[in-house]
């Protein structure tokens, strides 16, 4: 009798244990997007000390254009190209919308490692541009707060220095492309490698204010035509 009871208890316990062990799967985008957060950080809020960029809170149109570019080969990064290859436009749009609507605090900035001259050059390029090089100020497109402009222009602050360097370098070298006309490629090709380094140093060292969000309208008409940006001059 006792033995039978024990056996029943044991079976019940085992069943309970098995039920507890079963992975909990939620029917949510956050659950589906675990493929992304491995590199881009929990919920897509990557820290500023790594390589992978933050995706949480970026404008949805910008994220969607990047997802399309990785899937269709305009941007080259093997892991992203492979991961997105079997996904449809509709799903990529939903993924972009999911990460865009996340409102999460930003990590502290990355202290600059360059001297004052370099940082001054970076700041000048960001705020004023360089007329001699025909380089517009970053803020002319990316917004006065550098938090980007919805729906298609991304923020430039809150990102790792290495990532900024790599992206500007890739545009300059012609290995990253945006939809034509590719305004960022034109800008990057007018910059010297030392300018790119100065920009990345200054931008990565900026603090992102609490509750900062992309601007809703462009400060002025874009200084040059950009593909994938609604309202861009042709």
């Amino acid at each position: 009798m006792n033995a039978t009871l024990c056996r029943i208890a044991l079976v019940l316990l085992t069943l309970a244990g098995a039920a507890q062990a079963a992975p909990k799967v939620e029917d949510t985008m956050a659950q589906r997007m675990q493929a992304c957060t491995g590199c881009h950080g929990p919920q897509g809020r990557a820290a500023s000390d790594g390589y992978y960029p933050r995706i949480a809170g970026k404008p949805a149109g910008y994220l969607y254009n990047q997802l399309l570019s990785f899937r269709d080969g305009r941007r080259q990064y093997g892991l992203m190209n492979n991961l997105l290859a079997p996904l449809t436009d509709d799903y990529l749009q939903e993924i972009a919308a999911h990460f865009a609507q996340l409102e999460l605090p930003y990590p502290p900035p990355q202290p600059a490692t360059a001297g004052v001259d370099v940082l001054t050059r970076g700041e000048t390029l960001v705020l004023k541009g360089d007329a001699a090089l025909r380089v517009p100020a970053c803020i002319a497109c990316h917004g006065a707060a550098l938090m980007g402009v919805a729906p298609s222009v991304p923020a430039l602050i809150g990102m790792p220095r290495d990532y900024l360097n790599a992206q500007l370098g890739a545009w300059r070298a012609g290995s990253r492309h945006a939809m034509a006309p590719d305004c960022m490629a034109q800008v990057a090709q007018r910059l010297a490698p030392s300018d790119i380094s100065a920009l990345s140093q200054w931008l990565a060292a900026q603090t992102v204010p609490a509750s900062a969000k992309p601007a809703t309208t462009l400060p002025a008409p874009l200084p040059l035509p950009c593909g994938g940006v609604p309202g861009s001059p042709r």
Partner: protein
Amino acid sequence: MTRSLLRFAAVVLVVGALLVALIAWLNVRGEEPLDTAASTAPASPEQIERGAYLARAGNCLGCHTERGGAVYAGGRGVPTPFGTVFAPNLTPDATHGLGQWTAAEFWRALHHGRARDGRLLYPAFPYPNYTRVTRADSDAIFAYLRSLPAVAQANRPHELQFPFNQQAALAVWRALYFRPAAPEADATRSAEWNRGAYLVDGLGHCNACHASRNALGATATPLDLAGGLIPVQNWYAPSLASPLEAGVADWADADVVALLKTGVSARGAVMGPMSEVVSGSTQHLSDPDLRAMAAYLKALPPSDATRAPGSPAPADGPGAKLYDKHCAQCHGDQGEGAPGAYPALAGSRAVTMTSAANLVHVVLEGGFPPATAGNPRPYGMPPFATVLSNEDVAALLTHLRGSWGNRAAPVSAVDVGRFRNAK
């Protein structure tokens, strides 16, 4: 002395000439003169629609469209051990595409593997399979391609090493390995089985991946489906006949249909290069055609698969620790998975089959099953290439292959390195 040398030279010449004649004859055997008269009839909308469907069944788009490029304008490279073959423009452009082709010339390309100008075509274009396609289906595909917008995109020349870039080398290959075939029905089998055979062995060209290839890139037998490592990509296309790999003899028809239609099923999900096949081809096929493919695949004679036995993995080794940290949250403490989202690893043939190539790819590169009409929002797996060393991946995979009743051979760091560096 000189006379015997001369005689020897004459014999060599004659034998050589005979061999060349034989190879030349083997390359055009069974060809009838091109019939141009039949190609003048305009295509009907029904024929064009039928052609669009058949082009899906053949996944023509998969190669003849570059990533992000104009539809059917060509340009995608097919990597082979002999170099890269670039798929040409199939739009009706007069200079670069099929603008000047006739239906008879198109059929000759599918059936005999020759271009409009008579050049021999590389079998990266799977005419050893398409040779079984009927003339009516070939004409429908041609009518569909002719209905597309013309794109003036120049064809990219193949990048093949000598001697594989020579027509003579191709002629020898064809003499050895290619034989035009008529689409023949097997009267001893059902109509459904025959339709399945036509789709799997013909248009679907499944054995382009699911078969091993010899040193010259030819499959062992023309319609072998016994599995093989896909050259250059180094994903393993499992045997469709083996009960230890991807044989479906004991699957319900509905599970085979679900896998091909949605990319996921109660018995497993597709990954890697097969995702592309489901996305571009099989998800668009009708249920009767998918059931026919299932009937044919289920009836394949089972291969006597054996596998190297493994031993149980220690429950507290480094692999077990890595599993708990990175995998258990989704795949479960006992490798039981979560239906519809994360595949079970316990009892999974994808985990236990002899080749660990796909496991290495999946752990390093992650992935989503294809987003299809039937599974539009798939759950994804993160890549671990930047997190786990070759030793880590080997320990983890050895753990998967020796736990929860799985008993497959361990994986070494050298194996992992071989597939990590492949691209």
